[in-house]
């Protein structure tokens, strides 16, 4: 919708009706998230100003900023940078794998399309832990991957409990999060548009760059968010496949809530993370949406 500087009476009434309609459509989800998300989140925010009691309970009587003071510790910075690097790597690899895949699927006949897409999801209807343990077996010193590399003369590989194993596990776990939105935006591309662009541009690369790429951008942006954000906080896969030797943000937050039972610190870590990530996400989406 474009911004019109001066509205007529009729247009203004139309605008108001539209606004009401939009609000009503958003209302159910809006209300739901306020009651079952925003209010609970407010409790976490309140907890971040409290104190850990001797037994690991949360003492809400004296408000203080102590938990926020701890955010400046070196380990927090280390953990954040380490997790950021891991999440970036995962997102880029997911994008590289998912793009050709989603493009191929989106250009098949409708019946084949559906089948190929559901085929992506079926492995994920098994159990999450069992999938991770399956990777542990695949990547272990005498596992199938190692046996394969040995058979082709590359020698035994030791992947399990390394960063490589963690990246493989995260890419595996979050690949559908990239494929689905990419597919959803690529699928709407009219094949005739590509045909037409073929006539217009000399190379198929040029037609891809000028036509397909811009159209798929919303999907790529949504997908990167859906992959980056959860891998930034992932802790189960890094523990199972990486051996949890270097703390990551996810495991660090979990250790505050569950091991140290220091809820105020866990809550302050989470609050700051949420605020930073939300701003970054909104900026990323808006920038991505504007300049194609």
């Amino acid at each position, binding site marked *: 919708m474009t911004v019109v500087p001066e509205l007529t009476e009729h247009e203004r009434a139309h605008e108001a009706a539209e606004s009401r309609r939009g*609000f009503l459509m958003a209302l159910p989800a809006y209300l739901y998230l306020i009651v079952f998300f925003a209010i609970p989140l407010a409790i976490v925010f309140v907890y971040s100003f409290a104190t850990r009691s001797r037994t690991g309970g949360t003492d809400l009587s004296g408000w203080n900023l102590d938990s926020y003071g701890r955010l400046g510790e070196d380990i927090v910075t280390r953990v954040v940078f380490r997790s950021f690097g891991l999440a970036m790597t995962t997102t880029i690899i997911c994008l590289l794998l998912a793009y050709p895949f989603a493009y191929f699927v989106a250009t098949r006949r409708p019946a084949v399309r559906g089948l190929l897409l559901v085929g992506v999801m079926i492995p994920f209807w098994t159990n999450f832990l069992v999938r991770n343990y399956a990777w542990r077996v*695949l990547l272990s010193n005498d596992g199938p991957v190692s046996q394969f590399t040995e058979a082709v003369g590359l020698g035994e590989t030791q992947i399990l409990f390394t960063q490589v194993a963690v990246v493989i596990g995260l890419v595996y776990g979050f690949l559908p999060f990239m494929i689905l939105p990419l597919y959803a935006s690529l699928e709407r591309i009219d094949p005739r548009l590509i045909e037409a662009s073929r006539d217009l541009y000399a190379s198929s690369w040029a037609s891809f760059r000028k036509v397909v790429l811009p159209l798929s951008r919303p999907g790529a942006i949504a997908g990167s968010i859906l992959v980056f954000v959860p891998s930034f906080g992932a802790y189960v896969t890094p523990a199972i496949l990486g051996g949890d030797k270097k703390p990551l943000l996810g495991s660090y937050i979990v250790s505050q809530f569950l091991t140290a039972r220091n809820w105020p610190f866990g809550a302050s870590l989470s609050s700051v993370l949420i605020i930073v990530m939300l701003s970054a996400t909104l900026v990323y989406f808006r920038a991505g949406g504007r300049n194609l």
Partner: protein
Amino acid sequence: MIRGWTARLLGGATGLVYLFLYAPVLLLVVFSFSADRNVGRWGGFTLEWYREFGANENVQSALAISLQVAIVSTLVATVLGTLAALALERFRFRGKKVFDALLYLPIIIPDVTMAVMMLLFFTWSLDLVDTVTGFQLRKGIATVVVSHIAFNISFVSVVVRARLEGMDQTLEQAAADLYASRWQAFRHVTLPLILPGIVGGALLALTLSLDDVVITQFASGPGSTTLPVYVFGLIRRGVTPLINAVSVVMLAASVLLVVLSLIAQRSREPGRATTE
């Protein structure tokens, strides 16, 4: 359309992605027939784990609860999430920016934080309901469903918005002029156009719900242990191929569903061709 070597290259890449996706699944299926308790050590062929699945009521009830939670939360979240996506992409209204931000929060929040906050929230709010109305409510399947919907709405709406964003609106506008009601225009034009986004979002929601451990654990009460929570507890003693067998049964069931829906589509197609 794409032809020639580009198509072959893309096809090859797709094949590799499929290999990557199915390698662990293959391993999982194979070891569901292994007599050794440890996944990864072949102990000879057996159907023992399937028999145990048939006899183990804990696992069966956990699976049944998981499916209930996943289906209900996916349905509700898909409807709410799609409406939210349409509102945000197609309309301007007051409070839109706040709503936009609120929608991203459940994706951003670390799951252990969400788990803790749901625990505190349900304890407090059920207490409140008790003192105000006298109804003694307890945490259980319902509270698990409520928390799953809370995170699934956001995931659905992100996928649907990726579909809607930048989509040509002329068709919808034409339809709005053509059809008598807005509902008809939506039903016959907009809905089919955004359906791939809705389906993608729903698939994602279903997967997330079937996989969640921590939030479920903290939102549940007696008798509402889901399969992932059950399996998570098992790892202390070792996850046996029993869980592989359960996974294989779920795989088989979903493949069967897919095949059935394909057959249904096929048989409908000639009919559709004659009416159009």
